[in-house]
């Protein structure tokens, strides 16, 4: 650090004090990677079936659909909003595809239906939040009931089945060897959102809004438009997830993807995105998704029921958020 302080006149301010890469070593993502490696090793040691390409490939299905939504949700939460209706959008989109199927829709029409319903639901949420200025956490609790409620009205306790084999490929197909279509799609989506958030001016405005909404507005950021687009993208991702999930299960019930909204939010928060908005990034969320997938898979191999794993995830969530805050507090009190 050589910033000579001359007596008068403007002095040069360096752009950066630390290299762009040096800060990486103490970042949240690094910690998450370490956790992922530990989980991987523990799993590999505890089960002989873990280190098998096909088993690992199967494990990816535990998280890919949720993680697709988590990518868009990460941006939404960074901007200071939240969408709790994503799982309900899956239910509604899946039901709509089932209805389309009854009218003889083929695979392209089914996919189109899923995407369209996702977009419409996202637009509705976006309109309620940005158009009417309502708080997203309550509004999306409302639309969550509304969207899934419509699915229930249409389906009741029945189910749609009999999706065409071509459609099933979206949820069960493999692109190459053990690499599933879902995994490739997820990676493409992650790449898209990573670039969008970190390398474009749109991403910059997302951070600005999340850190200080009024300040961003006063800086000429079109806050409403940006947030609307984010809700639209979250809806679209839910639609895509609905296509994959429906294709994978081969059936639609109104209870499909029940409770996923909380898992998606957990994934995002675990990935280092502040629930208060303003900070976090896509790489962390991707690693968090992988960790959650590996843990589920490992517990599955060890015959531990999924619900026990939820204790683990809940504790992880609280510890991971609480530990840094507690540490900072203790540090602050010691220095005071």
């Amino acid at each position, binding site marked *: 650090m050589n910033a000579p302080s001359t007596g008068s006149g403007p002095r040069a301010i360096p752009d950066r004090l630390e290299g762009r890469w040096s800060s990486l070593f103490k970042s949240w993502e690094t910690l998450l990677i370490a956790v992922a490696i530990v989980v991987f090793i523990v799993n590999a040691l505890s089960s002989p079936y873990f280190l098998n390409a096909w088993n690992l490939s199967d494990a990816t299905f535990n998280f890919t659909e949720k993680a697709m939504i988590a990518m868009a949700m990460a941006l939404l939460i960074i901007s200071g909003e939240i969408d709790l209706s994503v799982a309900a959008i899956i239910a509604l989109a899946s039901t709509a595809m089932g209805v389309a199927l009854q009218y003889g829709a083929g695979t392209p029409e089914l996919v189109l239906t899923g995407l369209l319903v996702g977009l419409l639901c996202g637009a509705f949420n976006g309109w309620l939040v940005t158009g009417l200025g309502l708080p997203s956490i309550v509004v999306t609790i409302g639309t*969550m009931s509304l969207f899934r409620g419509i699915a229930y009205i249409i389906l009741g306790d029945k189910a749609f089945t009999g999706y065409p084999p071509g459609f099933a490929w979206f949820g069960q197909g493999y692109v190459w060897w053990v690499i599933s279509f879902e995994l490739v799609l997820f990676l493409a989506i992650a790449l898209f959102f990573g670039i969008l958030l970190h390398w474009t001016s749109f991403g910059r405005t997302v951070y600005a809004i999340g850190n200080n909404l009024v300040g961003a507005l006063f800086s000429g950021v079109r806050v409403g438009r940006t947030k609307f687009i984010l809700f639209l993208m979250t809806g679209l991702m839910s639609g895509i997830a609905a296509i994959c999930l429906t294709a994978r299960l081969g059936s639609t019930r109104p209870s499909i993807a029940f409770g996923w909204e909380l898992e998606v939010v957990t994934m995002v928060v675990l990935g280092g995105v502040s629930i*208060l908005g303003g900070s976090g990034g896509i790489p962390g969320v991707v690693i968090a998704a992988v960790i959650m997938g590996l843990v589920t898979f490992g517990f599955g191999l060890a015959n531990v029921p999924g619900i026990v794993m939820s204790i683990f995830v809940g504790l992880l969530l609280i510890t991971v958020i609480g530990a840094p805050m507690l540490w900072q507090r203790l540090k602050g009190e010691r220095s005071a």
Partner: protein
Amino acid sequence: MQKLLKSRELLLAAVIVLLLAVIAWRFPGFVRPRNLANVFNDTSILIILALGQMMVILTRCIDLSMAANLALTGMTVAMLNAAMPGIPVPLLIALGILLGAALGAFNGILVWKVEIPPIVVTLGTLTIFRGIIFVMSGGAWINAHQMSAAFKAFPRTPLLGLPVLSWVALFMIALMVVVITRTPLGRAFYAVGGNPTAAVYTGIDVGRTRFAAFTFAGALAGLSGYLWVSRYAVAYVDIAGGFELDIIAACVIGGISIAGGIGSVGGAVLGALFFGVVKNALPVINISPFWQLAISGGAIILAVAFNARAERKKGRLILRNREAAA
């Protein structure tokens, strides 16, 4: 008293009365006192939970773990009863309330001392509580035949024409009116949620107040745990699954602002009752019960939109000042 009947509550009451009138027009049986009492009894647990959630929301927090708390305490008292039928029911209820309060206090301590955002805390404890139930019960159900007769009978016992369950709800409403309007703590809930910075200036400890709200909400969830399990005579991991959002929805419909500091006991009760009326009316008027979810979703959105309109910031009103002064 007139504070209780602010326009929001009046309007909601009017909506409920209108709803009842429409139903009565075709199905007069629905509004017979006996049936209305049934509807109230059916909504009692939701009312009790909404009162707890109201306190939390007033302090600008949210508790997503109430239903999981209910399930955990419910399972605990059910297992105790199944294992040791000798424990008297009042003691079990007290245990349930205490356990619920302890679980709520755990949320509260994380919000107060560790300063984790409430939504994250309760999202975590929601899954933890459910997981603990599974570990505790091994995934098994506690069925009616494993529970003692006294255990199941308490909420159903008629007393002056109403089941005890209804009386518990009525007592809780009365208690909450007193706590909210007549105790310093109740007023502190409003202060902390309405203007946390200013609350500090008036000597109110924001964190401690929130802790109190979470603990009380937990106690009410614990009480509801026993009531739920004994009323439905069954306990398993997923009881009241997804109910946490119904509780919040009841509060929102009742005009309690998610931003904190705005709301009333009357609103929470009416919000819950709205739910109860819709749920009980659907089968009567021959609409599939599958409509219920969509109707409550629509109601939440309308309620939020309406509340937001009423709450909208009025600005400084500089010009009106002048007119008032002149």
